[in-house]
């Protein structure tokens, strides 16, 4: 029933911004302060965030450019146009594998953190399974519905994060903040590397541009969409260092959650705000997971065209679950994450940039 034209198929630019912001705000937001504080001293990490964020913005913009050259083609199609079908098969499959790993990682992240902060006895398998089921439910519905959920959840997430920061501001000690500008550039860049790696997400634009109302706005929407997490990361970092001091921050496993722990809502109505924070965070991870899962299905369906979406969901879910359960402890999990981000740099950044260059050189465009 398509009697309401706006209802379905096309995403508006503004909505794309929100989707990208949501995809990027993920597990990284909990761990990044530690990795920056390890490198830089005191307060200056915010510069690292800015640099790292700018780098991602640039890459994302270029990815958007690539996708918007082919406004109505799927990833598979335009890769095929640029480098031929066999490579397209390979690259799309690689992307599919990468996104499966992303989903597994995020799903396991939820399980781990829920286990650490919300539960003691419940096995992490059950927690992860429950989450995976809800993700499946979302992916089984319509794609547009999935993307619309981003629009609803992001404002809530942002609101809660900002509230946490506001309430913890009073614990900010200036002695942790000053001195300014005491770190040198090489350390800042090292910190920036950590930021760039933890901000994976803009590559979804490669797949979703064709759903946009105005595909030529894709690059712009990537930049705007990344601006939100970058600003958020900056403020979070500043508050964390101000409240905890860099020395402590590099010792906290999840500094952002620790920040939320310290919130005291006046009136004593809610005490352990970090549980609230955490439940809100689940929502944004959920969004990230569903987007990646949807990407996996899209990618794999372009290669193996005969299986239906539901069949794919049934096949992929056990695989994702098994992969998610692979890391045996926190350390293995974090290593998994690190390796995954390196893989991501290759598959999601390097290869598409290469494709863009080839496309430009060979003058490949939509009309071909």
């Amino acid at each position, binding site marked *: 029933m398509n009697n309401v034209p706006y209802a379905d198929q096309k995403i508006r630019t503004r*909505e794309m911004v929100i989707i990208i912001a949501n995809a990027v705000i993920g597990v990284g937001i909990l761990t990044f302060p530690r990795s920056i504080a390890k490198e830089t001293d005191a307060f200056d990490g915010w510069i690292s965030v800015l640099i790292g964020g700018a780098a991602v913005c640039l890459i994302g913009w270029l990815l958007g450019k690539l996708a918007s050259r082919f406004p109505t083609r799927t990833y598979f199609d335009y890769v095929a146009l640029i480098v031929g079908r066999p490579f397209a098969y390979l690259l799309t499959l690689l992307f599919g594998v990468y996104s499966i790993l992303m989903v597994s990682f995020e799903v396991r992240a939820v399980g781990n953190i829920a286990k650490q902060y919300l539960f003691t006895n419940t096995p992490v398998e059950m927690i992860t399974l429950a989450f995976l089921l809800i993700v499946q439910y979302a992916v089984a519905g319509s794609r547009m519905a999935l993307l619309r959920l981003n629009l609803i959840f992001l404002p809530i997430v942002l609101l809660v994060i900002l509230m946490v920061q506001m309430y913890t501001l009073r614990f900010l000690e200036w002695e942790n903040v000053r001195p300014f500008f005491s770190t040198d550039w090489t350390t800042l860049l090292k910190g920036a590397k950590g930021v760039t790696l933890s901000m994976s997400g803009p590559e979804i634009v490669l797949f979703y541009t064709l759903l946009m109302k105005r595909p030529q706005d894709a690059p712009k929407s990537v930049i705007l969409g990344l601006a939100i997490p970058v600003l958020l990361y900056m403020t979070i970092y500043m508050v964390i260092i101000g409240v905890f001091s860099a020395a402590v921050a590099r010792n906290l496993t999840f500094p952002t959650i620790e920040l939320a722990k310290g919130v005291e809502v006046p009136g004593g109505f809610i005490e352990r705000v970090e549980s609230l924070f955490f439940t809100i965070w689940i929502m944004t991870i959920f969004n990230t997971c569903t987007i990646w899962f949807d990407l996996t299905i899209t990618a794999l369906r372009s290669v193996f065209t005969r299986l239906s979406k539901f069949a794919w969901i049934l096949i992929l879910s056990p695989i994702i679950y098994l992969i998610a359960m692979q890391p045996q402890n926190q350390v293995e999990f974090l290593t998994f994450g690190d390796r995954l981000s390196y893989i991501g740099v290759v598959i999601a950044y390097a290869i598409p940039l290469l494709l863009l260059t080839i496309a430009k050189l060979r003058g490949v465009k939509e009309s071909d």
Partner: protein
Amino acid sequence: MASQLKRRPQQTPDLSTPLYPRLEENLTAIKQTLGNPQDLIVRTFSIDNTSLTCAVVCFDGLVDSDLINDKVVKHIQLTLPASGKKLPPPGEEMLTFLLREVLSTIEVKLESTFEAMYDRVLAGDTALFVDGTAQTIVIDSRGWQTRTIDEPVSEGLVRGPREGFTENIRDNTMLVRRRVRDVQLRFDTMNVGRRSKTDLIIAYMQDIANPALVQEVKRRLATIDVDEVEESGFIEQWIEDDFLSPFPQCQVTERPDKVASALFQGRVAILLDGTPMGLIVPVTFSMLLHSPEDFYERWIVGTLARLLRYVAAFLAVFSPALYVALVTYHPGLIPSDLAFSIAATREGVPFPAFVEALLMVATMELLQEAGLRLPKPIGQTVGIVGGLVIGESAVSAGLVSPVMVIVVALTAIASFAIPAYNLALTFRMIRFVVMFAAAIFGLYGVVLMFVAIFIHLANLTSLGVPYLTPFAPQLLNDWKDLLLRAPVTFMRKRPETGQPKDHIRMKTGDAP
């Protein structure tokens, strides 16, 4: 959906037979087909002092007897001879003559088949037969007892009109027409139910409503193929997009002012004879939480009331679940003093928090259901007193803790604050599901359920319109009427939810 009910074979005999020319034959056939019921009136009389006999066939109780007596029988019996007009010979010509010159009722029509005549007579019209003519004049004479126009029972307001629909569709259309005196108002009629032949009216504004929407509504209604349609609920269930969803996809209202404003928003209203409940489609989640009073009061009041209702909606669904989750899984979240006092008051309670919550909420449901069945004055008191008494006794018996009683009371009150009754019913159901989730996974379960509910809402459509508009497809213009209610002079455009054709509702936005 059409495949849900199989086609039933035709059971009634073939009634597309033409009428007989002879009066006695017609009358006999009528009496035989209808089984000669007591309320069938067959009054024969003669025209003039000729030997021509006429007969009037109608159902006692359905017809306005004064009309028949005065305007039909009397005219033919007395006035016609007095006027000295010449009667043409029996046949169609004569009937036309009667129609034009003699009968002084407004609605008259010529019919020539039994089927058509039965349709009209059973609806409350009167059939006038003249001997020698194989046609009949059907006169609209509907005048049965209807309920007076009263305050709508399920949607009372403090400020607002106190007129509600009745079971008579004519009254209802009157109420709507009085509010929409525009030439573009359309009332398209349909007949639903093969044997109940209930009148149904589709109301919309021709120049505002999206034609595709109207088309779709008509298409779905046309697929209805059952014997009888008793209430608009049946229509609602037939035309809704997803019958498995607990959420209502049509808005049900008894208020003509609601219908009128909906029409001006470009939506379509469905009125059914025999029930005061009208349907409005399409509907979104936020519309179900709006009340006309938001518009009749000033904007600050309206905004606050609306925000309160959103909070109430959240509480109505999640309070018991949050209680269970916090008490059982995360007592650390509760402020220390409260946590200790809850623990203290729960000392002697034999059940775990979840069972306690389940018991209390189930009891509350029972009370609500019971309150519906009892006569009006007793029903309300039983609801309140029953709740208090049962709560108190349960607490002193040590079965439940006092905090649980408060939580349940809060939930009940919150669900009463929802303007749409069908949505409140939905919340009652979902409450249980969320409680189960809370019992299994605590706060994590509640969050997952929250997400799951939203997934469902995001996928749901009401006649093609996504249920979460304007949150989801973000129609920022509509946000003036969403959580807030912007001052009247700001709301210059129509809500885009229904994709109306005409966007401007106010010429200028300047206040006087």
